[in-house]
Structure formats: structure tokens, C-alpha cells
């Protein structure tokens, strides 16, 4: 804690002073507050001063400009031949061809050849064999269980829905991975391209899902192919990032070995660099798959059929039991995909000697499994199409269980919810709503400057200025309030939990495993328990945000505490520290930079979740973005998306820089 004090010593007034002064003006200057009809310009950003285009409140009409650009791209014919939209739709049609194929294999069949889709027994068997190959029986069991659940509970068509979603993923994931890989390689080989790509990736990765969806609706349309395209755009940045990191981190010696062997440029790339960076690249593929799954669920909003679509309808109808069943399916698929792709990333080539069967046991097993399955399918129709009579559904029981659960907890939950609203959330919201934009700009600028970088200060000030001038200042502040409230709660839960978990090896393992599992769930899923417990209110939104985004808080706390060098701990114990002193005087100060990074991640997660929580009716930026979605207002969607991204990037720049400076002071990095 002393570290924080030293960093801010004597700077407190400089950083908070102007902000408080501007904030206090509301008690002195008339017309200063939001409640007055024409609030003071220094308090709420004034409305359009550039000719005023009507619909938009921003004093710089970014939204109109963007919409004009979109119109131009839609209408203007390049070389008089085709418009940009024709171009994107053309690409979409190509994607559609792949999609037709995977859909045919997984659930539609090839009617023109009178071939049905792949029978379920094949899918389960092949998944199990793949699991064995990649890691062993546990993974095989997980894969088997997942698909067994899907087929067993398919009374309401969960199997078909899952196959639809998987068909979409099996097109979008390879595409996204390929694009990410190529961009990553290009960035490593061409410095100038890297300078362009990094900031783009930063912005792309902090844009909310819905901004992509709106643009895709405009340029591609709706339906499955639109969903796939949106997913590809959403999922490629982590791949590009990990490719760049992987290629840059190859040891210099390995590259030199390649050069000395006389490799040409292409040989270098394909025979040395990519194989040597295999693990990070494969982890990139893992990330791509998980992002695809998350986005495929959300793409339901633009008519992507599949699990997400049905989940959305059930949630809208508050049919929670059915929603829960689908939710479990999504979660199982998520865990399975994650574990399989992780196993693939960590898979080391194995040495096998002997005859062909001994050298390729899994290939042979696959071959025999296909033969046996084919015979089974041929002889028994049961194996071809799982009979509907044998499917089950627990939705009725689940509905009842959820009802009786919430009924019995209705009073205490209601009291908790109201208490939270009245004593924590409402006052906090009032504070955030009353922040003058000029003050906030000065505030972030002061922090940036104090962290020692003029450039940093200017960047973050520009970010905040963009938000203020775009006309969504008050909404952005409400978003910020939700994020901040969640961050506080996450810290209150996450840090103690992290401390507890870091005490013993077994606890650490347990907690990190749970974190792993929770992190694989598509964010949309977290709305389910939130609605179940708190109906529709700020509390349920914040509840959903908190479960989703406390994961990094816990993870980084554990990481920071466990990575305190052993010799320092030993030195402290021999100096006579008690357990408590060891924690507060030694471990926490050293882990603090990591905890700050955890807070930064939590903030990013929270921002994403806030946008999704707009689905249950909050009045911040997410509501506006949902409106933009229903009116296909691309300009608005993009500008709001950028507002969200800039909130995230402002916090990210400042927190990461702060953490780095602390690490430097502690001598962890130079």
C-alpha cells in the first residue's frame, strides 16, 4: 500500500484538484447541472455546433459522417462496376458455399444425392477417439459426455441447433484463423504494417460485439452467412496478436540456425518460424474458436439460427427452464471445444516405433470405428437417427425448481436488490452522471502526464474528448458507472478469494480450474442466472457482469501472490514476520502491479458484459446500441462502439502504464 502512496505523494491535488473544482461548480453556477434545460457547456457537452444535422446531439457529428461514408460505400460504384456492398456480398456468397457443405454434413444432408447428414454415432465416436489421441481418456470422456447430452436432451431439437452452430463455427474458425495468421506474419515481416495493425487490433478487440453486427447487417444482410462473417471479423484479432507474439519470441539462435542451413525466405517461414512458434499459434486457434462460439451465440440477434437464437427467444419469453437446458448445451460445447483445442496446442509429437498399426494407432482406430459405425448404421436405424421417443427434457422440472427457488428466496433477494439499489447503485450513478466532461478530460490527462508521458496524456485526453463530442456523454457515464460498480464488487470478491486461494497449492489449483471453466462460457450465458435471481434491473445486470468479470481479478491476484520470489518470502519469515505481516507487508506490495493488471482485465470484461447486459434493459450506451441494431443504424452503432472502445482503451493505457512503472520500481522488469 505504501507503494501507492509514494506514487501519488504530493500529486494528489494536481490530479484531483481541477476535477473537484469543476465538479463543485454545480453548487455555485446556475444552469450548470444536467437537470437544467440548457446545461453549462463545461458540464454537459453542448449540442451540435457544426450546422446541426438534427438527429444527433454531438457537437461534432461523427455519426452523420459515418453514415455518409456508409451510404457512399453502399451506393458508389468502383470503376462503375460494383459497389463496396456488392463486393462484401460477393465474399459472403463464397462463404455461403463452404457453409452449405458443413451444414449438409452436420445436419441437412445432401438431398440431391439422397444422403443424410452424418449420423450421431459417428460424431460421438470420432470425438471420443480424437479425445484419446489429443490427451487421454479424461478428454475423451468430456467429449463423449458433451455429445451424449446433446443427443439425449434433444427433445426440443438441441442436437440440430448444436449442429447448426457447429457448422457455422467450422467455417468461421478456420477463416478467422487463416486471416489472423496471414496478418500476423505480414506484421512481423513488414514493420510499417505492424505500426498500422497494432492500434487497429486494440480498437477491434475493444469494440462491443453489436457494433460488428450492425455493420455486417448493412453490408452483408442477415442470416447464417452474415453471422459467420461477423464472427470471422470478431475472432481474427487474437489470432493475429498471438501470431505476432509467437513469431517475435522465437529464439534468435533458432532463426540463425535456419539462416546458416541456407534457408530461403519462404523456407525460413514455413520450415523454421511457423513450426517454432507452433504453441502460441495453436493457442491463437484456441482463442479463435472460443471467440467464434461466443459470437455465434450473439449473432442470434441478426438471425443466425442455432443455439443462440433459441436461447434468445427463451430468455425473451422468460422460459427459464428451457433456456437453462440450452444454456447447459452451450456451456458443454464451450468446455469441450476449449479443452480439445488446448490439448491440440500443447500436443507434442510422440515417438512410436514398430509396424504400421503400432506407429499409427489412432489412424487405425478411426478406420475401424468408421467401418463398425457404418455397419451399425446400416443394420439399426437407431444409430442413424436417434429416436425422438428416447429423448428427454428436464425443462418442466427445471422451471418448477427455478420458480420454487426464486419464490423461496423472493423476499431476501428482493431486500438485497433494493438495498443495493438504494444505498450503493443509485448514489454512485448520481455521482457518475454529474461528472463534468471538462473535469474528466483534465483528470485523465493529469494522470497520464504524471505517469510521465506527454504522449500518453494526449492520447487518453483525445479518447475522452471523442466520447464527449460524439453526443453520448451522459450515456457513457452511465456505462462507466455500471463498470465501476462491478469493478468495486469484483475487487471485493476477487482479491480476498485470490488471497485465500494463493495460500495453498491445492486451493490454487481448484480456484484456477474453476476460473478456467467459467472463462470458457460465452458471456451471453451469464444473463441466465442474473434474470433468474433479480429479474430485470440494474442489480441483475451488475450481477451478470460481476460473475463474468471477477475471473481475471481472481486469476491475477493468485498469480501475483504466488509469483513473489521464494527467497524474499524466506527472508521475511526468518526476519520474524507473522503470517499476516508476511501478507500485508511483503506479498501484497509485490503483487500489487499484477493486481492492477487484473483490475484492468476485469474492467475490459465488464465493458463487454455491460453491452450485452443492455439486453435486459439498462439505460446506458448498450441501450442505444440495441436501438441502432433494430434500425440498422450503422453510423450510430460504430460511433457508440468506438465510445465503448475508448473508455476501455483509456483505462487500459493508464492502468497498464501504472503497473509497468511499479514493476520497474520493484525491479521486476527494466
Amino acid at each position, binding site marked *: 500500500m505504501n507503494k501507492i502512496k509514494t506514487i501519488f505523494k504530493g500529486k494528489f491535488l494536481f490530479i484531483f484538484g481541477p476535477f473537484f473544482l469543476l465538479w463543485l461548480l454545480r453548487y455555485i453556477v446556475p444552469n450548470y447541472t444536467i437537470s437544467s434545460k440548457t446545461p453549462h457547456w463545461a458540464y454537459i457537452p453542448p449540442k451540435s455546433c457544426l450546422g446541426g444535422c438534427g438527429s444527433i446531439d454531438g457537437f461534432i457529428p461523427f455519426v452523420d459522417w459515418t453514415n455518409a461514408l456508409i451510404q457512399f460505400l453502399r451506393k458508389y460504384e468502383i470503376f462503375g462496376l460494383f459497389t463496396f456492398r456488392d463486393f462484401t456480398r460477393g465474399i459472403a456468397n463464397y462463404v455461403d458455399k463452404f457453409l452449405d457443405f458443413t451444414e449438409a454434413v452436420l445436419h441437412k444432408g445432401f438431398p440431391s444425392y439422397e444422403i443424410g447428414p452424418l449420423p450421431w454415432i459417428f460424431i460421438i465416436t470420432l470425438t471420443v477417439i480424437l479425445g484419446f489421441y489429443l490427451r487421454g481418456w479424461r478428454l475423451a470422456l468430456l467429449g463423449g459426455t458433451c455429445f451424449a447430452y446433446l443427443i439425449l436432451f434433444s427433445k426440443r431439437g438441441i442436437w440440430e441447433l448444436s449442429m447448426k452452430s457447429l457448422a457455422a463455427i467450422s467455417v468461421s474458425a478456420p477463416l478467422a484463423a487463416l486471416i489472423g495468421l496471414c496478418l500476423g506474419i505480414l506484421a512481423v515481416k513488414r514493420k510499417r504494417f505492424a505500426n498500422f495493425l497494432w492500434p487497429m487490433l486494440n480498437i477491434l478487440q475493444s469494440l462491443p460485439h453489436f457494433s460488428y453486427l450492425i455493420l455486417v447487417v448493412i453490408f452483408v444482410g442477415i442470416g447464417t452467412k452474415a453471422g459467420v462473417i461477423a464472427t470471422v471479423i470478431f475472432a481474427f484479432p487474437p489470432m493475429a496478436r498471438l501470431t505476432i507474439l509467437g513469431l517475435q519470441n522465437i*529464439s534468435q*539462435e*533458432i532463426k*540463425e*540456425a535456419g*539462416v*546458416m*542451413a*541456407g*534457408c*530461403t525466405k519462404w*523456407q525460413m517461414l514455413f*520450415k*523454421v518460424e511457423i*513450426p*517454432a512458434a*507452433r504453441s502460441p499459434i495453436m493457442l491463437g486457434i484456441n482463442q479463435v474458436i472460443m471467440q467464434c462460439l461466443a459470437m455465434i451465440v450473439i449473432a442470434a440477434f441478426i438471425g443466425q439460427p442455432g443455439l443462440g437464437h433459441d436461447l434468445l427467444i427463451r430468455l425473451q419469453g422468460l422460459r427459464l427452464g428451457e433456456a437453462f437446458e440450452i444454456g447447459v448445451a452451450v456451456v458443454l460445447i464451450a468446455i469441450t471445444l476449449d479443452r480439445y483445442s488446448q490439448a491440440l496446442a500443447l500436443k*507434442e*509429437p510422440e*515417438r512410436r*516405433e514398430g509396424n504400421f498399426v503400432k506407429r499409427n494407432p489412432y489412424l487405425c482406430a478411426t478406420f475401424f470405428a468408421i467401418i463398425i459405425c457404418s455397419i451399425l448404421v446400416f443394420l439399426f436405424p437407431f444409430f442413424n437417427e436417434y429416436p425422438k421417443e428416447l429423448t428427454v427434457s428436464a425443462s418442466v422440472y427445471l422451471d418448477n425448481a427455478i420458480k420454487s427457488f426464486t419464490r423461496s428466496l423472493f423476499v431476501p433477494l428482493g431486500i438485497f436488490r433494493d438495498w443495493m439499489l438504494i444505498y450503493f447503485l443509485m448514489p454512485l450513478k448520481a455521482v457518475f452522471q454529474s461528472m463534468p466532461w471538462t473535469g474528466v478530460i483534465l483528470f485523465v490527462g493529469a494522470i497520464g502526464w504524471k505517469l510521465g508521458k506527454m504522449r500518453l496524456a494526449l492520447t487518453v485526453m483525445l479518447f475522452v474528448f471523442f466520447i464527449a463530442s460524439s453526443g453520448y456523454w451522459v450515456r457513457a457515464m452511465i456505462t462507466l458507472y455500471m463498470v465501476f460498480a462491478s469493478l468495486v464488487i469484483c475487487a471485493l470478491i476477487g482479491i480476498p478469494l485470490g488471497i485465500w486461494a494463493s495460500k495453498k497449492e491445492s486451493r490454487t489449483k481448484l480456484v484456477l480450474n474453476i476460473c478456467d471453466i467459467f472463462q470458457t462460457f460465452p458471456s451471453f450465458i451469464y444473463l441466465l442466472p442474473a434474470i433468474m435471481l433479480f429479474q430485470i434491473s440494474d442489480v441483475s445486470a451488475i450481477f451478470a457482469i460481476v460473475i463474468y468479470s471477477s475471473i481475471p481479478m481472481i486469476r491475477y491476484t493468485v498469480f501475483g501472490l504466488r509469483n513473489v520470489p521464494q527467497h524474499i518470502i524466506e527472508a521475511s519469515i526468518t526476519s520474524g514476520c507473522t503470517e499476516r505481516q508476511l501478507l500485508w507487508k511483503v506479498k501484497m506490495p509485490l503483487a500489487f502491479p499484477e493486481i492492477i493488471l487484473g483490475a484492468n482485465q476485469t474492467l475490459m470484461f465488464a465493458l463487454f458484459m455491460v453491452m450485452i447486459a443492455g439486453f435486459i434493459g439498462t439505460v446506458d450506451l448498450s441501450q442505444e446500441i440495441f436501438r441502432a441494431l433494430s434500425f440498422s443504424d450503422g453510423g450510430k452503432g460504430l460511433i457508440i462502439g468506438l465510445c465503448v472502445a475508448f473508455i476501455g482503451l483509456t483505462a487500459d493505457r493508464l492502468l497498464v502504464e501504472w503497473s509497468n512503472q511499479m514493476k520497474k520500481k520493484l525491479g521486476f522488469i527494466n
Partner: protein
Amino acid sequence: MDDQIKISCSNIWKLYGENPEKFLKENNNNPSTEQLKSNKYIPAVRDASIDVKTGEILVIMGLSGSGKSTLLRCMSKLIQPTDGQVFFEGKDLLKASDKELIEIRRHKMGMVFQHFALLPHRTVLQNVAFPLEVQGIEPIKREDRAKEVIKLVGLEGREKYYPRELSGGQQQRVGLARSLAVGPDVWFLDEPFSALDPLIRKEMQNEFLRLQNMLKKTIVFITHDFDEAIRLADRIAIMYEGLIVQVGTPEELITKPATDYVAEFTKDIPRSKLLNAESVMNNDDKKLYDNTVNCKEKIEKIASKVLKSEGSYSVIDENKKVIGSLSKKEIIKALFAEDKNE
């Protein structure tokens, strides 16, 4: 004499900093230490000139940061020197096109790395065959050749292993095999044994000497370990802060150190390991005694027998000609004298 020189480096400079070429030119290609420091340039190699003779083992020796690895990389043009010239078999390497460089590396150079630099996704066989593979040699041929070299370094039976399944010493054997696969003329070794345990290191040094006895390559060997340098070298170049301080045979370094820095280095070296009969004998006494020793014999080996016997030993050269004598007096002087260098 010229055809005996394999690699010739003259006035090699490698500076790190902003626009080092311009800075070098402005300072007449010879900036002083102060000039470098005040302009914030980091000199890795300064004005290094050295020739590598065909068939010799040249050891470049220096502490970490002395520029020895950088100099080696300039010789193979892994790094572009800021200034200077490198001739490989009379060909100007720095003016060679990428294509020519690839050809030279594919056929004439082999390099061994400190941390082995094996490709983790390839088996031992595939690693060793890698330089042949990139040349486009067909699979059967290259695997036969790879097996040959693997046998040479004593890794027979491990062809299908992956690097992670091997110990450090075995991994470096793979590294040696890979660098030898194309049958290069010049063999670069960059601290090849530094990452190994002392015992294994000794074993690998012997292995290296055994290979060199068979293959007779031209070798540039980098090390920070003076003992290693003495064991292996025909000639040693000592580097300090980017400068080559002295080049000479091990004996020369000990008996006539050029600077205090070199003397400091050689001070703790047991002289018996290094000096041979020729360098300590009594030159005036050319009588033929009953016992003889070869002039190249190290003192370490002959000290005890000379000390045990009463009389003197004759020192003879390769042609059995007596060129001097050794008595107890010379041996004791060689072993215990503090200031041999006048």
C-alpha cells in the same frame, strides 16, 4: 600463403546506436572510447582484423559482452558489420548477393549454437537432415547422409527421438551432427559447450577433438572458458570490450601476454598444462642424454618423470634432432616461477 587463409576479416566495426555508419565516417573510422561513450554508441566489435587459416582451430575468447559472438556472426554475415571487410575464400562476403550467401551457407559453412537451436517439432533424424532438406536433396539420399553423421557423433539408435527426449549433451551432439551434415569447409562453434555440466563438457571437448582429428575442418570456436580455449586451440584471439587484444598460440599468450588484461587471464592457468618442453628447455645444452622427450610434450606429462630421475633429458624435435635439454632446474622454474615474463 594467401591460399592458406580461409576467412580474412579486416577492420570490422559493429556499433549499435543511431546511424552508426555516419558516425564512423565522421570520426575517420576510428572513434575513441570516449567519443563512443559520449555519443551513446554501444561498440560490439571495434576494428577487428583477423585471419583464419585453413585447417586450424581458432578460438575467440573473451568474457560476456566482449563482442566475440558478434565477431563470429560478422564472419558468417548473420550480422551486417557497420564497417570493414570479410573475405571468405577470397570472396567479399559483404558484397555477396542473398543468393550467393545462401549457396555459401548451404555448402561451405556449418554452425553450432550455445543453446543447441534444435527444431523442437522434428526428430533427431529430421533435424540433422534439415540443411540437406532445404537444399532440395531427395528424402532417401538426405536420410542416408543424416544417418551417417548421426553415427559419427555417436547417437546411433536415437534417430527417431525428439529433442526434448534427449539430455543436454545429446542435444548438442545433434547440433554438431546437423552442422556437419552438408560437409562444410568451415565450422563455426558459438560457445557450444557452455550450457553443459562440467563433466559432460569435458566429454564433449574430447568428442570435438576426435571429430576434428578425423575431419580436419577450419574451425572458429567461441568460448569464455580459458581452460577450454587452451585445450582446443591452435591459436587464441582474446577480445576485450570489442577489441582483439592479442592473437597467438596458447604458449605465446602465457609467456608473452600483450597487455595486463591478458596477463590477468593467464595468471591462474596452471603452466604445466600449457607449456611444452620446447618453451622451457635449456637451449644451450644440446647433448644427447639417455632419456629423451618430444619437444611438443606438455610439462604436465613429463614433469614427474624428470623430477624423479637424477640426470637430464634431451629434448628432440620431429626429426629426432636434439634441440635442447631439460633438468630438474628448468622444470621447477617452469612450475613455480611467478614472473616468467621479463
